[in-house]
């Protein structure tokens, strides 16, 4: 199946480039003086966080368009983006505490940024659980779309909380209006990593989308899908 092959190729290339990110971050990027080596976790944590959030917004947009257009492709995309989103959320929620422990002295803190990532994770869990709890594909798509839109609308509220509650979390370094306060080498590594994570997202979503499509074909031909046969 062509889409699957394309997805696999993109993922393969992304994984290779990820190795490149690893090498660049670990070996060729300067060590941050105050935080030490642990600061390098940034190069994985932040791109994953960016895509965790972007993925959920995309789920929301796809959901909104689905309710208007009723195009099943939008629903398949939403399901794919949600699954990939939760994987990235997993990366954020594991690397975050591992970074936090040596820097802040504690594995977890209810600071607004970590908490907001937890929220996104919970949104993903709810979305995926809802999808698996509904048998009929049309109803499933409708319900998921409703939840997806609500989730997307929650994101700005989650963001506002960050700015209302200044806390332990490092203040934005890169996304400030003024020029980034990191030395050039670190900026390059960050951008490289963001690019690779973008490619990973695309590759994963394309594969997962293809998987949905395959599952639907199998169900249609009466052979039963793999596992839950979720679209």
């Amino acid at each position, binding site marked *: 199946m062509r889409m699957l092959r394309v997805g696999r190729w993109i993922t393969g290339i992304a994984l290779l480039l990820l190795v490149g990110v690893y090498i660049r971050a670990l070996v060729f990027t300067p060590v941050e003086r105050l935080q030490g080596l642990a600061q390098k976790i940034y190069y994985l944590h932040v791109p994953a966080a960016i895509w965790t959030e972007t993925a959920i917004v995309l789920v929301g947009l796809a959901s909104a368009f689905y*309710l208007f257009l009723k195009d099943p492709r939008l629903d398949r995309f939403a399901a794919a983006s949600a699954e990939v989103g939760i994987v990235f959320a997993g990366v954020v929620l594991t690397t975050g505490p591992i970074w936090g422990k040596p820097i802040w002295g504690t594995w977890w803190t209810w600071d607004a940024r970590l908490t907001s990532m937890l*929220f996104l994770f*919970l*949104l993903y*869990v*709810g979305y995926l*659980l*809802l999808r698996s*709890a*509904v048998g009929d594909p049309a109803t499933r798509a*409708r*319900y998921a*779309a*409703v*939840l997806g*839109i*609500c*989730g997307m*609308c*929650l994101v700005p*509220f*989650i963001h*506002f*909380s960050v700015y*209302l509650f200044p806390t332990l979390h490092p203040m934005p370094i890169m996304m400030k209006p003024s020029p980034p306060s990191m030395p050039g080498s670190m900026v390059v590594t960050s951008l490289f990593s963001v690019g690779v994570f973008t490619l990973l997202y695309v590759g994963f979503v394309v594969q997962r989308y293809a998987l949905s499509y395959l599952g639907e074909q199998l169900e249609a031909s009466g052979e039963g899908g793999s596992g839950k046969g979720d679209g």
Partner: protein
Amino acid sequence: MRSPDLLRHAWAVASKDLLVEFRSRTAIVSVAVFVVLVFVVFQFGHDPTAVSNFDLAPSILWVTFTFAAILALNRAFQLELENQALEGLLLAPIGRGSIYLGKLIANLAFVATIELIGLPLLALFFNVPVLPCLGPLAATIALATVGFVAVGTLFSAMTVRTRFAELLLPVLLLPFMILPLWWAVLATGRLLASRPLSEVAGWLNMLAVYDVVFVTIALLLFPATVNE
């Protein structure tokens, strides 16, 4: 759909639900008992020299209120599951918006009753000054409650027909509930500690915006949860 019709029909839906609940009274009584139980247990359990009432009271208040809300929401559409009453409701000459609003009003009435019982009891058991800040406190409670009940009513329309409905609803609702709850607990804590209104105004504003946004979204999305 004209506004007066929307509200009139909503009220019809709401009063039907409230009448059924009032007649059986099982849910209200069990939640009220739970509230008293939680208050009493926490009073017995804590050492007043170690943990002040002011630290404990806001969280306990909101735990009991959210429990009441979840219970109300779990039952929200269960009435219609029997005898295909939901189909009957959908066939009635009222807009989908009215059904949602009616359910919302009924749920809010249920939770409000619990809150009206719970707040004085809190003041009594925990000796916290509720009267001086009653206005802002009532506003906080009202705004937060509307927030998560609005979203919960929408979700319960979906979960009621799934497997593990009662388990799924709280899981779906969790992120949507934690956020207004968080602001509400913080505001409640400040108010009970006799802090000025200006300190909690930010949270009250967030709650108000949250309510407006999510009630609107729920009204718009509700038809998608019941249309075949």
